[in-house]
């Protein structure tokens, strides 16, 4: 439901960066979205297209890279990649309450021309 707000930040940041680099338009926008971010990809794409329309980012390609959930197991001292609801260390079976990745919502890069 908050994908529109996120898309607004994406488009605004991309337009500001493009302008700062003297570019006329934004062709590609790359974001990294964590599996625990609560962001729905289709909703984000729809919001992005709607908001970018009519701006120099109109028609830009949105590339979404997923970031897996990463937990830290304090007994084993290791970090492991997993999925939402599965916070169990594959080595020792302990449940980790220390999630270190998966909530990302990052604007990684843009391509401009």
């Amino acid at each position, binding site marked *: *439901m*908050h994908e529109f707000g*996120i898309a607004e*930040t994406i488009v605004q*940041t991309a337009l500001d*960066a493009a302008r700062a680099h003297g570019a006329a338009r934004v062709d590609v926008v790359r974001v990294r979205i964590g599996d625990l971010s609560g962001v729905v990809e289709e909703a984000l794409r729809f919001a992005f297209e709607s908001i970018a329309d009519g701006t120099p980012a109109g028609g830009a390609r949105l590339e979404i890279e997923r970031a897996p959930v990463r937990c830290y197991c304090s007994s084993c001292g290791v970090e492991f990649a997993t999925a939402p*609801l599965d916070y169990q260390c594959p080595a020792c079976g302990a449940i980790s309450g220390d999630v270190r990745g998966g909530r990302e919502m*990052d604007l990684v890069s843009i*391509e401009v*021309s």
Partner: protein
Amino acid sequence: MCDHCGCSTPAPHAHGHAHDHDHSHAHDHDEERKTIALHQSLMAKNDRLAEQNRGFFKGRGILALNLVSSPGSGKTALIEATLRALKDEFRMATIVGDLATDNDARRLRAAGAPAIQITTGAVCHLDAHMVQHALEDLGDAPVDILFIENVGNLVCPSSFDLGERLRVVVTSVTEGEDKPLKYPAIFQNADAVVVNKIDLADAVGFARETALANLKAAAPRARLFEISARTGAGLDAWHAFLREHAPRRPAQPREAG
């Protein structure tokens, strides 16, 4: 495909070559595409304001709680019951977010605490900026515990740090057992989960063991409380949890209520 104009020439292509196709636009070969690395969090602004709020709370010795739930789980009822029970022990205040109406703020004021209403309009969550403004409205009133009642929604509030010390998810037996499985993001980093309306558990056929197993899997670091805000069942453990985290002010002894 050529990145530049969408023609079928492989990219990157040498310039100065013959073009055997028409262009509908000026073909300026100085205008190459370039990548700009940004690597910035889309939540950066909210997170920065949340850190300011956290500093404010820490500086004033305020225990701030962010209460999230689906609509109708009983956040307001839980806060009301807590305000009434602990009024002689702590100075408490509330910030309450709703899409519309100030009904909840009225209820909380009636329970004896200052209540700042944030009416979010179409926005489905509170953010750190809204809370910052509400704190201005709260002024200099001394506060030990601040309850921030979020907009009823199990999705969006999970992304917005408000600067709170504790995130509390309130759920209720009438919502069934699988809410934690359906909304993993909001449960995962909860410090406490309060299961409300246990007085209705039998009436709605609540499968307690299944529900607790789901909660433990989805909210691995949360303390669990089974309560009824209406009857008061289980509230003692919840109050003890608040006492554990609330600031101690030995210089200001209070009279027993």
